[in-house]
Protein backbone atom coordinates (compact mmCIF):
# COMPACT_ATOMS: atom_id res chain seq x y z
CA UNK A 1 0.00 0.00 0.00
CA UNK A 2 1.55 3.34 -0.99
CA UNK A 3 1.49 6.57 1.00
CA UNK A 4 -1.52 7.89 -0.96
CA UNK A 5 -3.60 4.78 -0.11
CA UNK A 6 -2.72 5.04 3.57
CA UNK A 7 -3.71 8.71 3.63
CA UNK A 8 -6.94 8.01 1.73
CA UNK A 9 -7.98 5.41 4.32
CA UNK A 10 -7.42 7.97 7.06
CA UNK A 11 -8.85 11.06 5.38
CA UNK A 12 -11.48 9.79 2.95
CA UNK A 13 -12.94 6.55 4.30
CA UNK A 14 -16.35 7.34 2.76
CA UNK A 15 -14.99 8.19 -0.73
CA UNK A 16 -15.48 11.89 -0.01
CA UNK A 17 -12.73 14.24 1.08
CA UNK A 18 -12.97 17.66 2.72
CA UNK A 19 -10.82 20.66 1.77
CA UNK A 20 -8.77 20.61 4.98
CA UNK A 21 -7.90 16.93 4.45
CA UNK A 22 -7.07 17.60 0.80
CA UNK A 23 -4.63 20.34 1.84
CA UNK A 24 -3.06 18.05 4.46
CA UNK A 25 -2.71 15.31 1.88
CA UNK A 26 -1.00 17.66 -0.61
CA UNK A 27 1.46 18.68 2.10
CA UNK A 28 2.12 15.07 3.18
CA UNK A 29 2.68 13.92 -0.42
CA UNK A 30 4.69 16.99 -1.44
CA UNK A 31 2.29 17.64 -4.31
CA UNK A 32 0.51 20.78 -5.50
CA UNK A 33 -3.20 21.10 -4.72
CA UNK A 34 -3.88 20.64 -8.45
CA UNK A 35 -1.87 17.40 -8.59
CA UNK A 36 -3.46 16.14 -5.39
CA UNK A 37 -7.01 16.77 -6.56
CA UNK A 38 -6.22 15.15 -9.93
CA UNK A 39 -4.99 12.01 -8.16
CA UNK A 40 -7.96 11.92 -5.80
CA UNK A 41 -10.47 12.15 -8.64
CA UNK A 42 -8.55 9.55 -10.67
CA UNK A 43 -8.91 7.17 -7.70
CA UNK A 44 -12.66 7.81 -7.50
CA UNK A 45 -12.45 10.03 -4.40
CA UNK A 46 -14.73 13.05 -4.63
CA UNK A 47 -13.77 16.37 -3.03
CA UNK A 48 -16.74 17.55 -0.99
CA UNK A 49 -16.89 20.77 -2.99
CA UNK A 50 -18.27 18.70 -5.89
CA UNK A 51 -20.81 16.79 -3.78
CA UNK A 52 -23.74 18.73 -5.25
CA UNK A 53 -22.50 18.07 -8.79
CA UNK A 54 -22.68 14.35 -8.18
CA UNK A 55 -26.29 13.64 -9.10
CA UNK A 56 -25.87 15.33 -12.49
CA UNK A 57 -22.23 14.50 -13.21
CA UNK A 58 -20.65 11.11 -12.44
CA UNK A 59 -17.33 10.80 -10.61
CA UNK A 60 -15.67 9.77 -13.87
CA UNK A 61 -17.09 12.88 -15.54
CA UNK A 62 -15.94 15.08 -12.65
CA UNK A 63 -12.47 13.61 -13.16
CA UNK A 64 -12.68 14.36 -16.91
CA UNK A 65 -13.64 18.00 -16.20
CA UNK A 66 -10.66 18.28 -13.88
CA UNK A 67 -8.32 16.90 -16.56
CA UNK A 68 -9.65 19.45 -19.08
CA UNK A 69 -8.14 22.76 -20.24
CA UNK A 70 -10.46 25.58 -21.23
CA UNK A 71 -9.47 29.01 -22.60
CA UNK A 72 -11.60 32.08 -21.84
CA UNK A 73 -10.85 35.03 -24.11
CA UNK A 74 -11.91 38.16 -22.25
CA UNK A 75 -12.43 38.78 -18.49
CA UNK A 76 -15.15 41.44 -18.64
CA UNK A 77 -18.92 40.90 -18.36
CA UNK A 78 -19.04 37.41 -19.85
CA UNK A 79 -15.57 36.35 -18.70
CA UNK A 80 -16.17 37.16 -15.03
CA UNK A 81 -19.26 34.94 -14.78
CA UNK A 82 -17.67 32.25 -16.97
CA UNK A 83 -14.56 31.95 -14.81
CA UNK A 84 -16.70 31.86 -11.66
CA UNK A 85 -18.79 28.98 -13.02
CA UNK A 86 -15.96 27.02 -14.65
CA UNK A 87 -13.91 27.14 -11.43
CA UNK A 88 -16.90 26.04 -9.33
CA UNK A 89 -17.70 23.25 -11.82
CA UNK A 90 -14.16 21.92 -11.37
CA UNK A 91 -12.56 22.54 -14.76
CA UNK A 92 -8.98 21.69 -13.77
CA UNK A 93 -7.02 24.07 -15.99
CA UNK A 94 -8.26 27.46 -17.15
CA UNK A 95 -6.40 30.07 -19.21
CA UNK A 96 -7.73 33.61 -19.52
CA UNK A 97 -6.83 36.64 -21.60
CA UNK A 98 -7.54 40.34 -21.04
CA UNK A 99 -5.34 43.42 -21.48
CA UNK A 100 -7.71 45.84 -19.73
CA UNK A 101 -8.08 47.23 -16.20
CA UNK A 102 -11.38 47.66 -14.34
CA UNK A 103 -13.11 51.04 -14.62
CA UNK A 104 -16.13 52.44 -12.77
CA UNK A 105 -18.43 51.89 -15.75
CA UNK A 106 -17.79 48.13 -15.41
CA UNK A 107 -19.48 48.05 -11.98
CA UNK A 108 -23.00 47.79 -13.44
CA UNK A 109 -22.46 44.28 -14.84
CA UNK A 110 -19.00 42.76 -14.43
CA UNK A 111 -18.84 40.26 -11.56
CA UNK A 112 -15.14 40.89 -10.90
CA UNK A 113 -15.52 44.69 -10.86
CA UNK A 114 -15.61 45.96 -7.28
CA UNK A 115 -14.79 49.31 -5.72
CA UNK A 116 -11.42 47.90 -4.69
CA UNK A 117 -10.64 46.44 -8.11
CA UNK A 118 -11.06 49.72 -10.04
CA UNK A 119 -7.80 50.33 -11.89
CA UNK A 120 -6.66 46.73 -11.33
CA UNK A 121 -5.91 44.27 -14.14
CA UNK A 122 -9.01 42.26 -15.08
CA UNK A 123 -7.12 39.03 -15.64
CA UNK A 124 -5.07 39.33 -12.44
CA UNK A 125 -8.29 40.02 -10.51
CA UNK A 126 -9.78 36.92 -12.15
CA UNK A 127 -6.75 34.87 -11.03
CA UNK A 128 -7.34 35.95 -7.40
CA UNK A 129 -11.04 35.10 -7.64
CA UNK A 130 -10.41 31.62 -9.08
CA UNK A 131 -7.78 31.00 -6.37
CA UNK A 132 -10.31 32.08 -3.71
CA UNK A 133 -13.03 29.75 -5.07
CA UNK A 134 -11.05 26.69 -6.07
CA UNK A 135 -7.29 26.66 -5.37
CA UNK A 136 -6.98 23.25 -7.08
CA UNK A 137 -7.61 24.92 -10.47
CA UNK A 138 -4.47 25.65 -12.46
CA UNK A 139 -5.08 29.17 -13.75
CA UNK A 140 -2.96 30.85 -16.40
CA UNK A 141 -3.41 34.61 -16.78
CA UNK A 142 -2.43 36.41 -19.97
CA UNK A 143 -2.45 40.15 -19.31
CA UNK A 144 -2.45 41.15 -22.97
CA UNK A 145 -4.70 41.19 -26.02
CA UNK A 146 -5.41 37.88 -27.68
CA UNK A 147 -3.28 37.91 -30.84
CA UNK A 148 -3.48 35.40 -33.69
CA UNK A 149 0.13 34.11 -33.87
CA UNK A 150 0.90 33.94 -30.17
CA UNK A 151 -2.65 32.91 -29.34
CA UNK A 152 -2.35 29.91 -31.62
CA UNK A 153 0.73 28.68 -29.73
CA UNK A 154 -0.86 29.31 -26.34
CA UNK A 155 -4.17 27.61 -27.23
CA UNK A 156 -2.44 24.33 -28.08
CA UNK A 157 -3.48 21.69 -25.55
CA UNK A 158 -6.86 23.25 -24.73
CA UNK A 159 -10.07 21.35 -25.46
CA UNK A 160 -12.51 24.27 -25.70
CA UNK A 161 -12.21 28.01 -26.34
CA UNK A 162 -14.82 30.44 -25.02
CA UNK A 163 -15.50 33.77 -26.71
CA UNK A 164 -15.99 36.44 -24.04
CA UNK A 165 -14.64 39.26 -26.22
CA UNK A 166 -16.16 42.68 -26.84
CA UNK A 167 -14.90 43.27 -30.38
CA UNK A 168 -16.46 41.88 -33.55
CA UNK A 169 -13.21 41.85 -35.61
CA UNK A 170 -11.30 40.08 -32.80
CA UNK A 171 -14.12 37.52 -32.56
CA UNK A 172 -13.78 36.83 -36.29
CA UNK A 173 -10.01 36.42 -35.83
CA UNK A 174 -10.53 34.08 -32.86
CA UNK A 175 -13.01 31.99 -34.87
CA UNK A 176 -10.43 31.66 -37.68
CA UNK A 177 -7.72 30.64 -35.17
CA UNK A 178 -10.03 27.99 -33.70
CA UNK A 179 -10.77 26.70 -37.21
CA UNK A 180 -7.06 26.37 -37.99
CA UNK A 181 -6.48 24.57 -34.70
CA UNK A 182 -9.59 22.36 -34.95
CA UNK A 183 -10.86 23.66 -31.60
CA UNK A 184 -14.52 24.08 -30.67
CA UNK A 185 -15.49 27.69 -29.90
CA UNK A 186 -18.39 28.68 -27.67
CA UNK A 187 -19.53 32.12 -28.83
CA UNK A 188 -21.50 34.55 -26.70
CA UNK A 189 -22.25 38.26 -27.08
CA UNK A 190 -24.44 40.84 -25.33
CA UNK A 191 -26.02 44.25 -25.98
CA UNK A 192 -28.58 46.12 -23.87
CA UNK A 193 -31.34 43.66 -22.90
CA UNK A 194 -30.18 41.14 -25.51
CA UNK A 195 -27.73 38.32 -25.88
CA UNK A 196 -26.78 35.55 -28.27
CA UNK A 197 -25.06 32.19 -28.15
CA UNK A 198 -23.70 29.68 -30.66
CA UNK A 199 -21.22 26.79 -30.52
CA UNK A 200 -18.96 26.45 -33.54
CA UNK A 201 -17.15 23.18 -34.20
CA UNK A 202 -14.21 22.77 -36.60
CA UNK A 203 -15.40 22.88 -40.21
CA UNK A 204 -18.40 25.07 -39.36
CA UNK A 205 -18.60 28.75 -40.34
CA UNK A 206 -21.19 29.95 -37.84
CA UNK A 207 -19.35 33.09 -36.72
CA UNK A 208 -18.71 34.14 -40.31
CA UNK A 209 -22.45 33.88 -40.93
CA UNK A 210 -23.41 35.68 -37.70
CA UNK A 211 -21.15 38.66 -38.43
CA UNK A 212 -21.15 38.73 -42.23
CA UNK A 213 -23.02 42.06 -42.29
CA UNK A 214 -20.84 43.57 -39.54
CA UNK A 215 -17.60 45.29 -40.51
CA UNK A 216 -17.62 47.62 -37.49
CA UNK A 217 -15.87 47.09 -34.13
CA UNK A 218 -19.02 47.02 -31.96
CA UNK A 219 -22.69 46.11 -32.27
CA UNK A 220 -25.83 47.54 -30.67
CA UNK A 221 -24.03 47.68 -27.30
CA UNK A 222 -22.21 50.83 -28.46
CA UNK A 223 -25.58 52.65 -28.24
CA UNK A 224 -27.47 50.46 -25.76
CA UNK A 225 -24.78 49.63 -23.21
CA UNK A 226 -25.31 46.32 -21.37
CA UNK A 227 -27.52 45.51 -18.38
CA UNK A 228 -26.36 43.28 -15.49
CA UNK A 229 -28.47 40.23 -16.32
CA UNK A 230 -27.35 39.91 -19.97
CA UNK A 231 -23.77 38.70 -19.27
CA UNK A 232 -24.99 36.47 -16.42
CA UNK A 233 -27.46 34.69 -18.74
CA UNK A 234 -25.14 34.31 -21.73
CA UNK A 235 -22.09 33.25 -19.67
CA UNK A 236 -24.15 30.59 -17.87
CA UNK A 237 -25.38 29.20 -21.19
CA UNK A 238 -21.79 29.22 -22.49
CA UNK A 239 -20.56 27.36 -19.37
CA UNK A 240 -23.21 24.67 -19.96
CA UNK A 241 -22.04 24.29 -23.59
CA UNK A 242 -18.42 23.93 -22.38
CA UNK A 243 -19.34 21.15 -19.96
CA UNK A 244 -21.35 19.29 -22.63
CA UNK A 245 -18.46 19.51 -25.12
CA UNK A 246 -16.00 18.20 -22.52
CA UNK A 247 -18.29 15.35 -21.47
CA UNK A 248 -19.58 14.52 -24.96
CA UNK A 249 -23.11 14.57 -23.64
CA UNK A 250 -26.36 16.42 -24.36
CA UNK A 251 -27.43 18.63 -27.26
CA UNK A 252 -25.16 21.48 -28.36
CA UNK A 253 -26.21 24.72 -30.04
CA UNK A 254 -24.30 23.96 -33.25
CA UNK A 255 -25.20 25.61 -36.58
CA UNK A 256 -27.93 27.46 -34.69
CA UNK A 257 -28.07 30.85 -33.02
CA UNK A 258 -29.93 31.51 -29.80
CA UNK A 259 -30.96 35.16 -29.64
CA UNK A 260 -32.84 36.53 -26.66
CA UNK A 261 -34.39 39.85 -25.86
CA UNK A 262 -35.25 40.05 -22.18
CA UNK A 263 -37.19 43.31 -22.56
CA UNK A 264 -39.88 41.49 -24.55
CA UNK A 265 -38.95 38.10 -23.01
CA UNK A 266 -38.36 36.51 -26.41
CA UNK A 267 -36.04 33.58 -27.09
CA UNK A 268 -35.40 32.62 -30.73
CA UNK A 269 -33.35 29.65 -31.94
CA UNK A 270 -32.54 30.03 -35.63
CA UNK A 271 -30.71 27.85 -38.17
CA UNK A 272 -27.43 29.25 -39.50
Amino acid at each position, binding site marked *: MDKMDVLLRQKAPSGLIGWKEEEEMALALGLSLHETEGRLLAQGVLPRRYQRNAKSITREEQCRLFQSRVAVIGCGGLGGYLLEELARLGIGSISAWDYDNFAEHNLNRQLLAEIDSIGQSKVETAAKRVQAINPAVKFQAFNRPFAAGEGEDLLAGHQVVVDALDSIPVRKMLAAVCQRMSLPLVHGAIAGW*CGQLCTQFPGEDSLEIIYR*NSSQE*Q*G*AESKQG*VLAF*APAVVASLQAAEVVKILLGRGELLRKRLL*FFNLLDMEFEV*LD*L
Partner: protein
Amino acid sequence: MKIVVKLFATLRQGRFKVQSGIYPEAAKVQDIVEGLAISPTDLGIIFVNGKSADLNRVLHEGDTISIFPPVGGG
Protein backbone atom coordinates in the same frame (compact mmCIF):
# COMPACT_ATOMS: atom_id res chain seq x y z
CA MET B 1 -45.68 39.79 -53.70
CA LYS B 2 -46.48 39.59 -50.02
CA ILE B 3 -43.56 39.43 -47.56
CA VAL B 4 -43.74 39.32 -43.76
CA VAL B 5 -41.02 41.38 -42.07
CA LYS B 6 -40.10 40.73 -38.41
CA LEU B 7 -37.82 43.11 -36.57
CA PHE B 8 -36.02 42.28 -33.34
CA ALA B 9 -34.81 44.17 -30.28
CA THR B 10 -33.60 47.72 -30.99
CA LEU B 11 -34.63 47.60 -34.67
CA ARG B 12 -38.25 47.90 -33.48
CA GLN B 13 -37.68 51.40 -32.15
CA GLY B 14 -39.53 53.82 -34.43
CA ARG B 15 -40.54 50.94 -36.71
CA PHE B 16 -42.64 47.86 -35.86
CA LYS B 17 -42.46 44.31 -34.52
CA VAL B 18 -44.13 42.41 -37.38
CA GLN B 19 -45.58 43.81 -40.59
CA SER B 20 -46.82 42.37 -43.89
CA GLY B 21 -45.92 44.33 -46.98
CA ILE B 22 -46.31 44.12 -50.74
CA TYR B 23 -42.97 44.18 -52.55
CA PRO B 24 -42.05 44.00 -56.26
CA GLU B 25 -41.30 40.56 -57.75
CA ALA B 26 -37.66 39.50 -57.32
CA ALA B 27 -37.12 41.97 -54.47
CA LYS B 28 -33.96 41.21 -52.52
CA VAL B 29 -33.26 41.26 -48.77
CA GLN B 30 -31.19 44.40 -49.40
CA ASP B 31 -34.26 46.21 -50.82
CA ILE B 32 -36.23 45.57 -47.66
CA VAL B 33 -33.36 46.64 -45.39
CA GLU B 34 -32.92 49.88 -47.35
CA GLY B 35 -36.68 50.48 -47.41
CA LEU B 36 -36.68 50.35 -43.61
CA ALA B 37 -33.75 52.79 -43.45
CA ILE B 38 -31.69 50.36 -41.36
CA SER B 39 -28.13 51.66 -41.44
CA PRO B 40 -25.29 49.17 -42.10
CA THR B 41 -24.00 49.59 -38.53
CA ASP B 42 -27.44 48.70 -37.11
CA LEU B 43 -27.72 45.56 -39.24
CA GLY B 44 -26.87 42.16 -37.78
CA ILE B 45 -27.89 38.72 -38.94
CA ILE B 46 -30.85 38.15 -41.27
CA PHE B 47 -33.01 35.05 -41.62
CA VAL B 48 -35.47 34.15 -44.36
CA ASN B 49 -38.02 31.54 -43.30
CA GLY B 50 -35.86 30.73 -40.26
CA LYS B 51 -32.64 30.12 -42.23
CA SER B 52 -29.77 32.62 -42.36
CA ALA B 53 -29.62 34.64 -45.58
CA ASP B 54 -27.39 37.33 -47.08
CA LEU B 55 -28.38 40.72 -48.49
CA ASN B 56 -28.47 39.44 -52.09
CA ARG B 57 -31.03 36.75 -51.37
CA VAL B 58 -33.99 37.02 -53.78
CA LEU B 59 -37.31 36.82 -51.96
CA HIS B 60 -40.44 34.92 -52.96
CA GLU B 61 -44.15 35.27 -52.33
CA GLY B 62 -45.00 34.43 -48.72
CA ASP B 63 -41.43 34.61 -47.37
CA THR B 64 -40.84 35.78 -43.82
CA ILE B 65 -37.73 37.86 -43.24
CA SER B 66 -36.35 38.35 -39.71
CA ILE B 67 -33.81 41.08 -39.11
CA PHE B 68 -31.65 41.31 -35.96
CA PRO B 69 -29.32 44.02 -34.68
CA PRO B 70 -25.61 43.17 -34.36
CA VAL B 71 -24.66 42.01 -30.87
CA GLY B 72 -20.97 42.30 -30.05
CA GLY B 73 -20.52 43.17 -26.37
CA GLY B 74 -18.79 41.00 -23.83
